[in-house]
């Protein structure tokens, strides 16, 4: 089995620059149109949060279960929830079923828009300057997060040591 990869999203690193949206829309539609991007950064101004929202390629995907025509299915090998425009009837039930807002509708092309990992080289991850979106091996995903938390503790312990006046 080929190794599986995942798009690892870390909202705490996101600064809301939206380069991901531009890269995504250009990759798929040859235009810079955030409204047509498969990834969307949601900004919560007051809380100071920027959260990239994108299809999470669920294992037990509600959109796949809901789709009446088999236009969405889970690929065993890669783990991608794939989409076939020709089989899609545009009923949008997948959009209703998705608990994350990971699937959208593009009126211009009359088609569902959802992340397809750009065929194996996700442009959002490629362009993200902060590491908030990363394209990592599935087994690494949790390790990457763990590592970052650990580094934060490292920082805390350094501060405590400094406060005590020692090294």
């Amino acid at each position: 089995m080929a190794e599986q990869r995942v798009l690892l999203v870390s909202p705490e690193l996101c600064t809301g620059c939206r380069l991901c949206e531009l890269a995504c829309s250009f990759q798929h539609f040859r235009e810079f149109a955030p409204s047509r991007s498969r990834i969307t950064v949601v900004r919560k101004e007051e809380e100071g949060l920027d959260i990239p929202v994108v299809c999470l390629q669920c294992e037990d995907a509600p959109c796949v279960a809901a789709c009446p025509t088999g236009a969405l299915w889970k690929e065993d090998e890669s783990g991608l929830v794939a989409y076939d425009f020709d089989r899609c009837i545009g009923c949008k039930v997948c959009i209703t079923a998705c608990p994350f807002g990971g699937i959208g509708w593009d009126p211009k092309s009359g088609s569902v828009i959802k992340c397809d990992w750009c065929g194996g080289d996700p442009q959002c991850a490629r362009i993200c300057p902060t590491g908030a979106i990363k394209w990592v091996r599935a087994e690494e995903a949790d390790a990457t997060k763990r590592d970052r938390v650990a580094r934060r503790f490292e920082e805390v312990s350094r501060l405590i040591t400094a406060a005590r006046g020692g090294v």
Partner: protein
Amino acid sequence: MRYGGYAGRYIRVDLSSGSIGVLETPESLARDYVGGLGFGVRLLWDEVDERTDPLGPDNRLVIATGPLTGTLFPAAGRYQMAAKSPLTGIWGQSNSGGFFGPELKFAGYDMVVIQGRSERPVYLVIDDDEVRLADASHVWGKTTFETTDIVREDLGDETFKVMAIGPAGENLVRFAAVINDAGNAGGRTGMGAVMGSKKLKAIAVRGSRGVRVADDGAFMEVVDEAYEKLQVEWGEAVRETLTKYGTPNLVEAINAIGRMPVKNHWTGYWERADEIGGVAIRERYRVKQGSCYGCLVQCKYYVEVREGPFAGRYKGPEYEAIVSFGSSLLIDDLPAIFRANHLADALGMDSISLGMTIAWAMESWERGLLTAEDTGGLDLSWGNADSVIELIEKTAYREGFGGVIAEGSRRASQIIGRGTEKYAMHVKGLEISAQDGRAHQSSGLTHATAARGADHLTSLSCLEERGYERVAAERYGEDKVRELTDPLETKYKGWLVKDLEDLYAMGNSLIICWYEVGWPPVFYFDDMARALAAATGMEEYRDPRAIRIAAERIVTLRRMFNVREGLRRKDDTLPERFLREPMPTGPARGNVCRLDEMLDDYYRARGCDPETGVPTDETLRRLGLGDLAGRWR
């Protein structure tokens, strides 16, 4: 519009009649003036003149994007404003980041032109093809932050991008700013007062269209190269300065060369600079990285003050604001500076003009020329942060002595008189930004010649600041590197300032951010030419010489705007302090700004008559402005 990159349409609103027109962006305007600043220059030349009252209905406010706005070219998320300035009475312009600019483009417009004056307060809603005026009486009097929230609530969608004025703009404070996306300022030259005079409180925009470029493949090649330059070639220089600290990184660096204004530009060095520097901010207060649209430099940041009278969460101040509210007033308390900067944003004022006008008042106070009788009892001793905070609020509402500050330093000093005019640190009515021509000679030339008054972004050279020898050699030749990178040398600086004035004018027309063109000096004319040609399909711009000519056309016509207002060489000068008072302390001690040694070169390079400072007929003809020839001497 046959060119890529543009939306192809623009909006014209006449607030007197309430009529709104959606018009085609003329191809000739795109070809000859590119976008952004260039559009503003051409429109103001055509539609405003020396009789126009900046606060009257005939003034125009041009809000423009450029052909790169909203594309993947790095840091192309800005917009440009231009109007006749209520602060200076001459050419006015201001540029802002955030998210508003690209959203305007995504709604399908290259620009918005505002004219006339509404009877009642209104705000403009641009929602793709729907463009309408809405009643703004319920937000009149609100801060820019409150207005942004309320307008979004009105429209039922928090993804609307909003630019707004605060109470200062409504009250026609002459340096009122426009604030967009909660804390990004189009600060200088009083664009907020122009909006206030027209009773236009805000513009809200939402767009679902896309930007298409002429040649996808070529454009993405240009983009990839640009990323390579920023992330690899200049990667460390960017990450370790702007990304890590933001522009406050300049505080320590600029103080070290003795060029950081202290005590109303009295000197250029402060022993306490580290107290208000980038490192102090990062270690004690920084909580989050921020960014403008489509940028990987990411110089924005947020701070939190956990206790004390100024506790709160703030958008981090820029270098200019830190100097303006900090060293210029001898305030070394960062929370007070954060608070002052926040108030300037909330109430809608330019932090530079505001702080520097208060600095004039403090110096006048110290010298006994201004007393408690004038200030309504406010103690304006150096370093009195409480008084400064109070005065900032009073200024926005024109209460008491705030009404004098609200006029800006030139007019304020004329109102008070008693010789305080000498301490008003402005050129052409615009307060001098945080450089000093005595320590960095070419920055004095920049302040003296910039069209909007004593501004740095027009042509400031960072070659001397940080000793960019390789850049100097590549652009201007090995033989000039020594002089060009020596801040105290005047040789070649006239030519340098002219070159950078053109470069930054083109940057503001495309529009891309100063923090990848000015400092660090990453992109030059050849990069801009490739990007413009690929985005628009204008083949002529493949030749960098063509883009230089377009830039010169924009700068020259902008200069002609001021010539038409009556400005000549005598106005391209500096306050006496810079020309006659040797720098009293710090690394540049003993120096004055030798402006005259640079001015002749500047005029020659600019194609102006050195006697008058007016562009020659030959220059005007060369740039396709022949119809202006022979009319002004």
